[in-house]
């Protein structure tokens, strides 16, 4: 329980620090690095897809391998890139925005990260062990139940482990936002990024268990001989589609709402105006989250659920356009008459508005059930969801990274390189995906590894591939930017943007304990309230006292490692029963670590107030 501020240095010490850390700021960095790594892998897979489709009947990759890279592109980008990059921003920012010293469950925060990482590694290990999953990211049965080899098994176990991590992270943020807010930080004073995190965490809580069950059933069918999706045993493969989309549709809102939150922070900061229609924005966020659970069957219009079901889900889907439209107009009105400063974060945010609106409009088109029979499984759908996911989520992540980089790393990303990234990626994106709307309307089906010449598809596909290369260039420039900024960038103050919310009220670098004294929040845009009254800092809500901090622990890493080992055991026990040993060893490690966690007291430690002035915890 004593204070330890001993400073060890060297690679080993840093590695150990990051393996055991429970500090939300460091966990945010871990999410950023691993999410970025998987983003690059998913991007390479995308490039392979586009190179294969650059000309008719290309033979760059084989048909089977194309199925694998296509499946892994979707799975990686959704589960292993977009989700963790969003968690990176949430971890880096949300505790600071509510004036907390850490999240509610720092230990679980670490566990959530390591589960995600080991799940992602298990999934990608399939590349080296006989082939990746090849049944599409949706893994529809019976295609997935009959897919030969172990690819789909890696999909099941990998997503099961990383999904558990996501669920844990969701519960953690819910409790953090309910219980850890600083005095005066009422719900209607929460910054919008925190609000979207809150709603998204609730969506995770209620959506991911459906995926958990779906994956269990698929695992039982493939590895233990059950018959859920096997028509020969009386099973029904449509159950998988329902379970997958009961999870899968909320999942897309889980991805997009935090991006909405980012834009709602960036636009007011650089327009020098408070967010227009804050209350309506909160209401719209909650409404989108609620409606997100009511629309899953719009992915299944062509299954044959009947006209009544299709109509209900079509109308519910179109209803989501209303709160989303409210948001679009509120962002526009935030800009209206503002003192607008254009930089990289702002470019991503401004370009998001028209791009996402295009994606939303094709969404309403797809929601019309009768018309969907024409669009279904064509490139029109591919174009639609890339407009909302890249144009919304990826733009949001880029905007958030440029905006909060000085908070996370103490330096502002190079503006010139940032603008080169933006323009190449932005132009490349529209070049890649705009044309795909028309390819789809002309009848080009998605997921096919070749197309025939002289069907009117040649030019469109060629343009699309050129655009993909531009996006790759933009991503590489961003990586160069990170390296350049890290090595040559200058340290900035804790408030480089003249910010409005609490995360900018902290010195740079952020102290280990975030706030020396918990701040008193006196209004929406808490720091801006103080600035308008001539103060430079927050008013403290408590006298200077000892600060209670959680202890670091290696147990989350060990628990996740155990499940990783058990995952291999589950996959291979069907070939050789002795692999059950790996299941027992792995589960033994995990349950043993849980036992240790339960019986060993962990009360955290205190940083004494006398040591604060000497730089303890910095």
């Amino acid at each position, binding site marked *: 329980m004593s204070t330890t501020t001993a400073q060890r240095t060297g690679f080993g010490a840093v590695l150990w620090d990051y393996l055991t850390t429970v500090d939300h700021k460091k966990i945010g960095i871990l999410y950023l690095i691993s999410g970025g790594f998987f983003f690059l892998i998913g991007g390479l897979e995308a490039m392979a897809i586009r190179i294969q489709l650059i000309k008719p009947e290309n033979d760059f990759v084989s048909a089977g391998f194309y199925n694998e890279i296509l499946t892994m592109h979707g799975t990686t980008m959704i589960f292993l890139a977009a989700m963790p990059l969003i968690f990176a921003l949430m971890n880096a920012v949300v505790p600071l925005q509510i004036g907390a010293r850490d999240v*509610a*469950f720092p230990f679980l925060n670490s566990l959530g990260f390591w589960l995600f990482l080991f799940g992602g590694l298990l999934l990608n290990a399939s590349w080296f062990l006989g082939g990746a999953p090849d049944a599409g990211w949706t893994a529809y049965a019976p295609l997935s139940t009959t897919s030969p080899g172990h690819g789909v098994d890696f999909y099941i176990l990998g997503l099961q482990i990383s999904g558990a991590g996501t*669920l844990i992270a969701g*519960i*953690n943020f*819910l*409790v953090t936002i*309910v*219980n*850890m807010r600083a005095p005066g930080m009422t719900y209607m004073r929460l910054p919008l990024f925190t609000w979207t995190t809150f709603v998204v965490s609730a969506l995770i*809580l*209620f*959506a*991911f*268990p*459906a995926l*958990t*069950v*779906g994956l*269990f*059933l698929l695992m*039982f*069918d493939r590895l*233990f*001989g*059950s*018959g*859920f999706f*096997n028509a020969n*045993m*009386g*099973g*029904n493969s449509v*159950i998988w589609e*329902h*379970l997958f989309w*009961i999870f899968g549709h909320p999942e897309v809102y889980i991805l997009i709402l935090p991006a909405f939150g980012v834009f709602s922070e960036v636009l007011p900061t650089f327009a020098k105006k408070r967010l227009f229609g804050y209350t309506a924005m909160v209401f719209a966020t909650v409404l989108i989250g609620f409606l997100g659970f009511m629309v899953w069957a719009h992915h299944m219009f062509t299954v044959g659920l009947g006209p009544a079901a299709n109509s209900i889900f079509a109308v519910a889907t179109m209803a989501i356009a209303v709160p989303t439209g409210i948001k679009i107009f509120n962002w526009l009105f935030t800009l209206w008459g503002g003192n607008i400063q254009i930089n990289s974060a702002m470019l991503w945010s401004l370009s998001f508005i028209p791009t996402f609106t295009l994606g939303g409009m094709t969404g309403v088109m797809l929601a019309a059930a009768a018309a969907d029979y024409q669009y279904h499984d064509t490139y029109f759908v591919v174009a639609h969801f890339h407009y909302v996911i890249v144009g919304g989520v990826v733009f949001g992540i880029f905007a958030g990274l440029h905006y909060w980089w000085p908070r996370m790393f103490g330096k502002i990303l190079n503006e010139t390189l940032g603008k080169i990234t933006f323009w190449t990626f932005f132009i490349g994106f529209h070049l890649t995906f705009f044309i795909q709307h028309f390819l789809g309307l002309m009848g080009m089906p998605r997921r096919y590894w070749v197309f025939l010449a002289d069907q009117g598809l040649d030019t469109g596909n060629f343009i699309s591939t050129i655009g993909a290369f531009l996006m790759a260039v933009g991503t590489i420039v961003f990586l160069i930017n990170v390296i350049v900024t890290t090595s040559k960038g200058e340290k900035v103050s804790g408030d480089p943007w003249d910010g409005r919310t609490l995360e900018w009220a902290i010195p740079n670098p952020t102290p280990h304990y975030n706030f020396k004294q918990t701040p008193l929040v006196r209004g929406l845009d808490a720091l801006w309230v103080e600035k308008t009254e001539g103060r430079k800092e927050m008013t403290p809500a408590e006298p200077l006292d*000892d600060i*209670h901090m959680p202890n670091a622990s290696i147990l989350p890493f060990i628990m996740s490692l155990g499940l990783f080992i058990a995952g291999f055991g589950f996959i291979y026990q069907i070939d050789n029963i002795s692999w059950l040993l790996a299941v027992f060893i792995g589960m033994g490690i995990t349950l043993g670590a849980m*036992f240790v966690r*339960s*019986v060993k*007291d962990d*009360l955290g430690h*205190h940083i004494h107030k006398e040591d604060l002035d000497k730089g303890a915890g910095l």
Partner: protein
Amino acid sequence: MSHDTLNPEVMPSEPEKATLEGKNKFLGFWFFLGGETVLFASLFGTYLALRNSNNGGPTSEELFGLELVFVMTMLLLTSSLTSVYAMYHMKNNDFRKMQIWLGITVALGLGFLGFEIYEFYHYIHHYEFTFRSSAFGSAFYTLVGFHGGHVLFGLLWIITIMARNAKRGLNLYNAPKFYIASLYWHFIDVVWVFIFTVVYLMGVI
């Protein structure tokens, strides 16, 4: 921090929520149970879709006998009541009585689990009704088995914290642990009520 969570001078009337950590655990566990509800709802939905897909094997009418299930239901419902008594004594800071009632809870839970294992054994050996015999079999053993797995985990959990704290008694650090374990136990009980209704009652009617 002024008060000592391991050796509090006075135990408050709600020791499970007296510290911030306790409050976080309390709320976080309720959220977790919300997620568990979706998990079991998905399993119930799957079961309802497949309960008549017996693939020529035994049907639910032929399999289920309500006598055994009634005994199991009584055991589990009673164990929920005894865990309430345990929490009552926790709030009165009577550690010994809390341990006794938790012990009775565990004994009832073990009884339930024993009957469930016998039930599965009976189906497999007398009816050759297994996890692999039909979609109905898969759905039945998965739903009821998930519940049984939860019972087993809950028993191990309660036994672990009873043994860990046997010598030192109640404090503000372990009170939330006892409390959320009892919440978990109630949840298992509620799920069983639904299983009893949806699987067994609806299965024989």
